[in-house]
């Protein structure tokens, strides 16, 4: 068992300010209307501090980090 960090977004709260994509371009890009597209899969550990900063910086508090346990076969 391993605990993975995932980024979640409240789509109703999100107003497309776009700060998240500036702070975490490795995982987040913006669509043609300025709304974030989050890359699938867990956030790598080395990006965790930046992900936390993106969450804290969102002006409408639409971003969150969730820990999920992923069952591993190996």
């Amino acid at each position, binding site marked *: 068992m391993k605990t993975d960090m995932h980024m979640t977004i*409240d*789509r109703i709260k999100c107003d497309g300010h776009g700060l998240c994509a500036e702070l975490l371009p490795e995982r987040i890009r913006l*669509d043609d209307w300025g709304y974030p597209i989050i890359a699938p899969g867990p956030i790598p550990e080395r990006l965790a501090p930046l992900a936390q900063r993106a969450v804290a910086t969102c002006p409408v508090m639409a971003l969150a980090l969730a820990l999920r346990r992923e069952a591993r076969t190996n």
Partner: protein
Amino acid sequence: MSGLRLLAGPDLRAGAEGYGDHVRRLGAPTLAGRPLIEALVQSRLTGRGGASFSAGVKWRSVASASKGTAVIVANGAEGEPQSHKDRLLMATRPHLILDGAFLAARTVRAASVVLYVGQEHKAAYAAMERALAERPDVERRIARMAAAPHRYVAGESSAAVHLIDAGIATPTTTPPHPRERGVAAAPTLMQNVETLAHVALIARYGDAWYRSAGRNGAVGTLLITLAGGVKKPGVVEIEAGTTIGEAVAMAGGMSEPAGAVLLGGYFGVWIPAAKAWELPLDAEALGAAGLGLGCGVVGLLPSSRCGVCDTAHIMRYLAEESSAQCGPCFFGLRALSDACSRVAERGTNRDDIARLKRWAVEVQGRGACKHPDGAVMFLRSALSTFSEEFATHPAHWRQQPA
């Protein structure tokens, strides 16, 4: 099959069957509580609102969450423009639905029952209201009507909860799912009206009886709406597993040769007619083929009509029906609709086709509810079924879809 189940009984043209006649014809239900939940699980009955989720599993989950506070919502919003089955059932057999709703209330120990009915379905609303007034006091006391606004998303479960609680029929962020925290923050069992009507019969005749109908491995019966190029459009009750071709024959056959079939209504997918004919109308079998039964609409596109233009009209409708809460849905569907309209009106162009393909993937999964997902799934099926037509579409703008 010996005959109809939900639509058995007096002539449908006579309107709603009264409570006295209903009880004389069918007697009282014999199953409730845990044995009913077990019968529902064994019956393999699935929800008929579009999601095709196991009714028994849903009831079990709400029953275990309920502390006598749960709420039952009979969902008769039927916002899908091509679907007529729910309003027909409500207008003619309201007591089957009410039986199911009150059986649910007893079984999950609910404190209240809400009959959520589309306000534009006037005959259905009036029939449900009259039927409720005919029920025994103990049932009437805990039940009330709620009018679903004439919006596509009003039938979505979190939107229904939002309307009943706050008068606003827009979806809310999930989780929490209404099953855990719904109306008045209580565990809420939301079930389509057709599903509840099946429950009313399973509670009388049992799960083996339910499974005794059905073809090609499918079980039970279902109501479907035939629309577009058929001789007798409307609602028919079929055995699950009946093929699309056979269902069309029940509606008097095609009015002219069909080029494609829209399965599941505006939230559904286009399928080339040649491929559609042999498909069984059954949630499980269609799911295995990567398709869905949805709310059971089978719409035929006559080959004289233009699939691109019909798609553009439907995309316009779906964009306008966004509740404008989530950016990717509000802006994305509007942009997709505009691009479809440009292809339809001014003729095809590479840029718009490329945009349609890219956006149809990008918008997926990026709304609080499934409205944008349904819209882009519909569009992707159009781009594949009508790929030639999209690539060669001339500048014309054909009629509104039927």
